[in-house]
């Protein structure tokens, strides 16, 4: 089971969806060395305003911030998320509004806003 996050755009009365899941995968880093990683995965079929598919986002820890794992997207802070809810809200915000290159001096690349 996963959680579906619906985003409604009031201007043109259209919705987009982000799917949030928690997954575990086997990671093989070298022969005979494998580990299991558990993480949150954000995925959406929405495109950005330039018609490019928005990327999948993986969150391994509370300090994996939305902007290049260095800064939160909605606010200029490098603090780790305090709750899962706070993480989900910030990643959703980042999908919707996008961000500029190096926003909040995070070193991130530009991501355009979500297209509705």
């Amino acid at each position, binding site marked *: *089971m996963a959680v579906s996050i619906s985003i409604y755009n009031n201007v043109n009365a259209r919705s987009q969806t982000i799917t949030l*899941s*928690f997954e*575990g995968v086997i990671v093989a880093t070298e022969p005979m060395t494998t580990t*299991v990683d558990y993480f949150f995965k954000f995925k959406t079929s929405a495109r950005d305003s330039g018609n490019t598919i928005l990327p999948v986002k993986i969150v391994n*820890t509370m300090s994996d911030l939305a902007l290049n794992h260095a800064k939160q997207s909605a606010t200029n802070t490098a603090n780790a998320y305090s*709750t*899962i809810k706070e993480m989900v809200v910030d990643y959703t915000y980042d999908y919707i509004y996008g961000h500029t290159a190096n926003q909040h001096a995070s070193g991130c690349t530009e991501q355009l806003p979500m297209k509705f």
Partner: protein
Amino acid sequence: MATINVYDEGSDRTYQVYVDVYNTVLHDGSGDTDYYLKITTNMRKHDGTAFGDFRVRNLSDVPPGKAAGTSFTDLVNKYIDYFVEEGEYIYSNSSSLSSSSSTSYFENWSSSSSNSSSSQSRSSSSSSSSSTSYVENWSSSSSSSSSSSSSSSP
């Protein structure tokens, strides 16, 4: 959802630990929503009772006696270790580990019991299914955040 299979050679049984994300409207008067992980298992404690459902809102929501997790992988492993340590088969006569026919990943670890060399293997798999959300009653007391704030469902 992540599903972890835990094999106990002593009883030749495989148990499951389930970890999944949920979105719930809080029944605490606020009407607010929350996102959290729910960790459950079909293992039993050594006294035969069931483990409760653990709800996790941050990396400090760990099992009793465990330090805060450093990552979600670390957190899940702490819950698996807790279930194994408190599970019924730790008191069984299992004594050695051998791989089973599972196609997934296996990891050996030693039992915490000083007079037993019992060990288990665990495998992991993940799957996604159709998304859904639901409304669930929520005890307002469970919203407190501390190292032992993981709460069991009634």
